[in-house]
């Protein structure tokens, strides 16, 4: 199951573990990513709290926790190769894995069809 936020983040859910990253649209808007700041493993995040920072040649942006949870893993490979976000935003370019506090909160996010429609509405 995959869900999307209006901030162009995705969370790919497997049980109560969610893999969070930015969407392909987000990476195309940011341009070449040059730096990523990831949270420490174990950090607890409220929904909407700043989870990570992504910096491209154009701008620096925050990545927010789409739902509340605790960070159980971060994608260390991004630190040395932030370009992975541009090449494979949806797979290799994931940011962090969250242990989701309450999976019911996912209902507040968009599914694939809703996100596609949202992209159409803003482009």
């Amino acid at each position: 199951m995959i869900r999307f936020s209006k901030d162009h983040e995705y969370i790919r859910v497997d049980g109560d573990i969610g893999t969070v990253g930015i969407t392909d649209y987000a990476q195309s808007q940011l341009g070449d990513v040059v730096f990523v700041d990831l949270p420490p493993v174990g950090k607890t995040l409220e929904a909407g709290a700043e989870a990570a920072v992504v910096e491209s040649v154009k701008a620096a942006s925050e990545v927010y926790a789409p739902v509340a949870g605790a960070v159980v893993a971060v994608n260390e490979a991004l630190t040395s190769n932030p370009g992975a976000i541009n090449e494979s935003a949806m797979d290799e370019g994931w940011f962090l894995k969250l242990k989701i506090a309450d999976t019911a909160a996912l209902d507040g996010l968009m599914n694939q069809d809703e996100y596609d429609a949202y992209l159409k509405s803003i482009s």
Partner: protein
Amino acid sequence: MLNTQGRPTAAGEAAAITHATFTGNRALQQSEPLLFEIGRAETTGVDLPDVPAHTPRLGGLARKGAIGLVGLSEPETMRHYVRLSQRNYGIDTGLFPLGSCTMKHNPRLNEAMARLPGFADVHPLQPQSTVQGAVALMEMLSHWLMTLTGMPAVALSPKAGAHGELCGMMAIKAAIAARGEAATRTVVLVPDSAHGTNPATAALIGFSVRPVPAGPDGTVHVDEVKKRLGPDVAAIMLTNPNTCGLFEPDIVRIAAAMHEAGAYFYCDGANFNAIVGKTRPGDLGIDAMHINLHKTFSTPHGGGGPGAGPVVLSERLAAYAPVPFIRRDGDRLALVEDTAGSAAFGRMTAFHGQMGMYVRAMAYMLSHGADGMRQASEDAVLNANYIKAGLADLMSQPFGDRPCMHEALFDDEWLKGTGVTTLDFAKAMIDEGYHPMTMYFPLVVHGAMLIEPTESESRASLDLFIMTLRDLAIAVRSGKTERFTGAPYHAPVRRMDETRAARQPVLKWTAPAPAQAAE
């Protein structure tokens, strides 16, 4: 065809061919290596006497190894720095349309005044009785800044816009602490079109930032502010006119809402040049605002000189202004340096600030007069609207075709599908001999191009700029993308690989390995 001396008078067929030169220079535009690449250890431009016999008193800290400094002759040294200076582009070279930066002409009269010995040759540690004239100029500048802004107090010492922001926000923090609310008022509202320094300033002194979205018309609406107001809010930081080049129409209502909620109103004065003599920030309900002397009041800016960011304060914040401040006792002026017995939050700088900039700003104010400064603001706004009108049929505007203040904002809607980006367009402007405008800012506008011509430009200069941008825009629209995607073609340095520069920065020069001797 040959003239009588047999000398060709026109370029031959090869005129269009471009090729790399042997030296790497582009005609008389010289390529310049680093000092370490052209210098030699055995050369020196100065004759120093041998060190006489002496007893070292460095307690064993004397340097042991060579540090590898290179020497150059005087002409080599001079050429190095002159060549570098020729690579520079400034307001003295040409139109500098960098939005939200107010790159205006620095009048030469300012320079002459700043070099008067009574201003130039004084030292901050001199007895104050010997620098009464310099302090009197500071008092006069304070008076003019307070009069132009309608505010009762000013702190002159901050040394730049962001430093001024810090000063104003520290005064707000001190006022909140004095009310016993330091632990509860911890949030600062910042519109998403703000200069990046605003949220950075708030965060630096321990506030958390709550963003306020701009409305679809590019301005901040009081209802959006009210939704985010509460007993936890310390202040709002708002730029007016804002970074979209628009006057905030709700500003008085926003100020009232902030005050009603027990919070303060910080105004970013970076764009003050648009409203000098037209509107007084004090009348709008602002509690603190920095003034960039290096923008609005024509002191050098961007490598040409240090900034200066005095902060004006409302009655509610005046008591917390940092030291030093000027106290007049009859004919005698004193800089009060001690915070004892006052609510001053401390000090921002070791001494009193940028004396040379005070003199230049005062020279600008006195030479223009109140009416002249008002006209400068009017001309700055007129020039921006002239550019906007000259380009509106070719380039798209994010908030519709309506009058702007001191800067004209375009977005990249008109570039969609052309294969040319805002960055490419800016690089092609370099080929045409113009410093690009502010790009990709404000962040709320996609592919933003923010053009601020200032009042310095003549109509002829504006016309040439408009015609150049029109020529570029027509080239985009007729599919001549190669003029953009490979630009700049004519600059001494071609397009940078910004991604690689950021991902693999080379921050330190290392000597190349010595050449291997031939076998």
